[in-house]
């Protein structure tokens, strides 16, 4: 039985250590906010934070998580950066279908937590791993700038 710290709470999962964190979250713990998009770290839909750093949950065997703290989209609103991103996303109507946005929001929250005023190049570097098929990139960029400005105001 593995113990995991997710969004500040202890969770237990009876799985083998090789199962990627993505499937433990979704199928074992029922936390379906983290999305499956590609399974090979090409789309970013499964992005979560491990001690605040964005990682692709589809590539992370759950046995390697250890005591590190996991934050998912269900919990990121409890962090100032995550809340700022969620608010900007709604204010600017960034979202269309929304399926990729869990991952976009997690990548964006990690970016603005570490970078007070991200440049376009910073945004490109931090967000190029997150695909949006609806094509919301124009507003993702605006949303990050707005969230960063409000977060660091």
């Amino acid at each position, binding site marked *: 039985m593995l113990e995991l710290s997710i969004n500040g709470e202890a969770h237990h999962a009876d*799985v*083998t250590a090789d*199962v*990627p964190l993505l*499937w*433990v979250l*979704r*199928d*074992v713990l*029922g*936390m*379906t*906010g*983290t*999305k*499956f*998009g*590609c*399974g*090979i770290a*090409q*789309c970013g*839909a499964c992005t979560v934070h491990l001690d605040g750093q964005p990682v692709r949950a589809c590539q992370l065997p759950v046995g390697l998580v250890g005591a590190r703290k996991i934050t*998912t*989209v*269900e919990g*990121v*609103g409890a962090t100032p950066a995550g809340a700022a991103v*969620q608010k900007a*996303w*709604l204010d600017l*109507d960034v*979202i*269309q*279908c*929304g*399926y*990729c*946005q*869990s991952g976009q*929001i997690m990548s964006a929250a990690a970016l603005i937590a570490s970078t007070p005023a991200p440049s376009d190049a910073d*945004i*490109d*570097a931090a*967000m*190029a*791993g*997150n*695909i*949006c*098929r*609806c*094509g*919301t*990139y*124009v*507003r*993702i*960029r605006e949303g990050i700038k707005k969230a960063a400005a409000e977060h660091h105001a």
Partner: protein
Amino acid sequence: MNAVAPTRRQLLRGMAAGGFVLAVGLAGGQLAVAGDDAHAAAFAPDAFIRIGTDGAMTLIMPQVEMGQGIYTTLAMLIAEELDVDLATVTLAEAPPSDALYGNPLFKIQMTGGSTSVRAYFLPMRRAGAAARAMLVQAAAARWRVDPASCTTEAGQVRHAASGRSIGYGAIAGAAARLKPPAEPVLKDPKTFRLVGKPHHRLDTAHKVDGSLKYGIDVMPEGVKFATLAASPVLGGKVAHVDDSQARALPGVRQIVVLDDIVAVVGDHMWAAKQGLDALAITWDDGANAAVSTETLWQGLQAAAAQPGVAATKAAPIDATGEDVVSAQYEIPLLAHAPMEPMNCTVHVKPGACELWVGTQVSTKAQGIAAKALGIPPEAVTVNNHLIGGGFGRRLEVDMVEKAVRVAQKVDGPVKIVWTREEDIQKAMYRSLYGSWMSARLQDGKPVAWEHKVVGPAVIARFLPPAFTGGIDIDAVDGAVETPYVLPDMAVRYVRHEPVGVQTCFWRGVGPNNNVFSTECFVDLLANKAGTDPLDYRRSLTDPKGRARHVLDLAAEKAGWGTPLPARSGRGICLQFAFGSYLATIAEVAVADDGTVRVQRLVTAVDCGVTVNPDGVIAQIQGGHVFGLSAVLHQQITLEKGRVQQSNFHDYRVLRIDEMPQIEVHLVASAEAPGGIGEPGTVSVQPAVANAVYAATGVQLTRMPIDPALIARKA
């Protein structure tokens, strides 16, 4: 309105029994799971509006929300006429019923083709206006005043003269006993409070915190998880399966082997996938084992030799002589690759079945499940969810049929999720299409025009009643009607069904081919005439028309004619499709190795009256990105009957670091509403191709853009 009354009662019974749909709570509201009292409300004047005696209000959405913002738009239209505050309303997905929720333009329950606003602009307003009239009449009767002396606002009827007001809930019961007006009086557009003003989306509050449940997220009690593999060659069958390794893996529970599908059921998706990977499956490839990209293109080109069916009256032109310009344009096979992979959760019970899925066609999903199980459609409960990307892929129900056939062998509910590889390789695809263009020029201008379209008749399979006279109306859309004042146009259609792939609709549909070919051809003609592409288009458009207006607006905003660096260029697309006029101007820079970087897109849009202008802008922005992925990166290729791409590394989607600036300019208009989901995808492709032509002198005639070809020729 009267006509639907009996079926409405059936509907309410169905809801009470079936517990249908998710509902999306609005702006901070709660996620409500429906089938509850809100739907069996006191006042249910039609298929769309439910008002309880407590004032709780639910609007039932006849079109599915897949990102295009239609829940917001349809709710705005009802709320405009009904005079309710949208922040207090719950939106619910309609249950399957062609009779109640059939798209007025297709007669079946279907969301697609950029038709929602065109089909529902008046029906939604009429529904709101009729309900409002009944509520006013009920309040006036209670107060014994003239209904004409009452007004409505924010869910209340008011009588100014006596200072009285009453909430809709309090008179819901009385209103329910009245007959709906046959011809409800609609508001004068000058008095609109909502329509035409930007409105925040109503479907996204639960999309920022992961709480919204897409089809792939459902967790019925006791659900198991499965993934599947269909034959890698279309039409192939399972010859042999060795499952000894798979059975030994932890978490693998069951292996389902059907004629043409193998599935593994497990404790979670990872176990199922590991199990599937561990199976040694031998396939009998069948008749399509030799299909390749080459045979597909050869088939298309061979078909082009046929005369085809005339879609317009003009005779084909004699394509000989020096004054005739001819060219041929082709677009490739494409996958849709929506971010939510194909999935369907199914619980097969004795004589019944329950589905959880996100589909653009609820009744088709219900029908295919019923057919697969040999039970009546009414025995299939469909829980339709908000969709994580459709783009036409979820107009098909192959994923439902496959899931049901697997679930038939599984005890209890099972969630069948396709891997991304399965999604790319065993999909239904946007077909390859070709256009063979000819024009006779006199003083540089076309005096005769021929456009022969070659491609499949998706309509003939998808909506057979709409396929008449051998013409697929979608396949020739954008060819028969252009934004130009042209001489007699001969448009011909050759139906060609590619062998070895299944084809379906894809965002932008028929105009993707026809606007691409027409607009590239217009650039070619302008070049032959020695005329600037903007001036040439201006000379072919009505100076007072809507097409000219968007063309000039886009040109002005894009700074057409201002200098650009070497190997940079601007290209235009002018189009009329889906009832909307668009002009897109792309600016590109081409590197020495032929790599194309799109720097800027400027689009002017006249889509008639707009309901939610910000939603229109979002659809153009997103449509452009969808089209850029296609024009720059995408093509599905086959070898030995098998699709060669497998995931996002080799079936590339545009990423944020490749984004151009995008500017969208809306033209204020009182014309009938046009569609807006598809046009941006269509216009960006020829605009970019024409910009490459301007930058390099190389006109690319087959998509996607081939940098190696540009490097060789430029």
